[in-house]
């Protein structure tokens, strides 16, 4: 068995891999931003102490976290109605169904995980800070925005970034609905040129290099933040 990676020329990289890579990165960024936003909202609901808010948020978060991501991807692909895709320009809505569905899925799914991180972050702020804010006459919104969330975000930054790396790895699961991500790029290139073995090996190497350097960066950042505090 001889490995031959020479078939990977610039043309193949451009036509197969870059397209997938862009989508993987886009999916990671959108899902992180959307997930953090929605997750913060869920965390605030769970910490509000009002039953009408706590119960639905708890059910949502625990529900999402007890289902495999692949099944969530399949559920969204099945349930998002055709009228949703019609909101996009015709060509995008028709040609990128899997991709649009994947973005929705990841925002909804990751929100559950980000909300747990945010909840831990908010709870890590000493009660005295909350009380001090209240004593200053701040409203709940002011207190959250000016006192608690800035500190919580900073405490949680390394964990948030680690979750983002996991999220980047998880984007490969959109394979289930045939969305075109980085892994799909390697997959198609390998199949088209009859070199699946080299393709999968190279995919492993590329994912490893990306994730390893990102986690090295997060580790460094963690140390930096720890010194400042």
């Amino acid at each position, binding site marked *: 068995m001889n490995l031959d990676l020479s078939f990977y020329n610039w043309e193949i990289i451009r036509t197969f891999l870059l397209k997938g890579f862009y989508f993987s990165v886009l999916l990671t960024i959108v899902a992180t931003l959307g997930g953090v936003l929605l997750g913060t909202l869920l965390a605030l609901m769970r910490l509000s102490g009002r039953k009408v808010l706590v119960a639905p948020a708890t059910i949502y978060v625990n529900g999402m*976290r*007890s289902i495999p991501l692949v*099944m969530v991807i399949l559920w969204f692909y099945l*349930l998002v109605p055709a009228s949703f895709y019609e909101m996009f320009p015709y060509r995008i809505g028709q040609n990128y169904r899997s991709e649009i569905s994947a973005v929705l899925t990841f925002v909804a799914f990751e929100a559950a995980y980000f909300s747990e991180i945010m909840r831990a972050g908010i709870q890590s702020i000493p009660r005295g800070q909350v009380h001090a804010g209240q004593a200053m006459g701040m409203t709940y919104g002011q207190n959250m925005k000016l006192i608690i969330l800035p500190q919580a975000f900073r405490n949680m930054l390394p964990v948030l970034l680690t979750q983002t790396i996991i999220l980047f790895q998880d984007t*490969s699961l959109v394979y289930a609905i045939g969305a075109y991500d980085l*892994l799909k790029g390697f997959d198609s290139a390998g199949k088209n040129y009859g070199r699946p073995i080299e393709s999968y090996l190279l995919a492993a190497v590329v*994912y490893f290099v990306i994730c390893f350097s990102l986690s090295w960066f997060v580790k460094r950042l963690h140390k930096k933040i720890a010194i400042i505090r």
Partner: protein
Amino acid sequence: MKTNWDWAVFLQDPGGQYPTYWQWLMSAWGWTISVSVFSLVVALTIGSLVGIARTLPDNPWLARFANAWVELFRNIPLLVQIFVWYHVVPALIPPMKGVPGFFLVVCALGFFTSARIAEQVRAGIQSLPKGQRYAGMAMGFTTVQYYRYVILPMAYRIIIPPLTSEAMNIFKNSSVAFAVSISELTMFALQAQEETSRGIEIYLAVTGLYVVSAFAINRIMAFIEKRTRVPGFIASADAGAGGH
């Protein structure tokens, strides 16, 4: 929105190996459970060895190897690892050629999870006071002895909650095996949905079985934690509260 449930779909004949979809579903659940349980055994065994190796004194090369192991299996997506085991390993290593796909997937999922378990075992060992190790040494125990009788019994009790989450994760992660045609629950969901166009009923049943499996493993771990608890030593109960 009006829904027309048709649960009788599970009594239809898929026209293959199984007389009804219901029996196919149960067989798929069996595959999910076997993949998960075998992978868990592999992950616990290798994860423990690697985790312990990272804490051994006076053996920097072994510790370096163990660190590399963890980084390697943690930084590649599970699906890519499964593809590598399924397509690449049999092609590159001739003796692996005739190995059934089930075994390869168990290796993939087991090795992937072993990296995470190694992290937890290491953290558990390092969370123990150094005095425990020194006490073992002072008693004249060999390294093997003080790990076996002093450190590991406490370390494993401490890490039961994160191990619970990991055991539940393995059930969830086993769904990725659909990509290499292991006929487990997700594979069943995909195929049965296509054949019957009754996606909602099929997916509901499959999702329900995943939740039931995860809950069952959670209860088993809670039982183990309760039975092995050292009175007055570990305060926290509620195994795997973060696991769901």
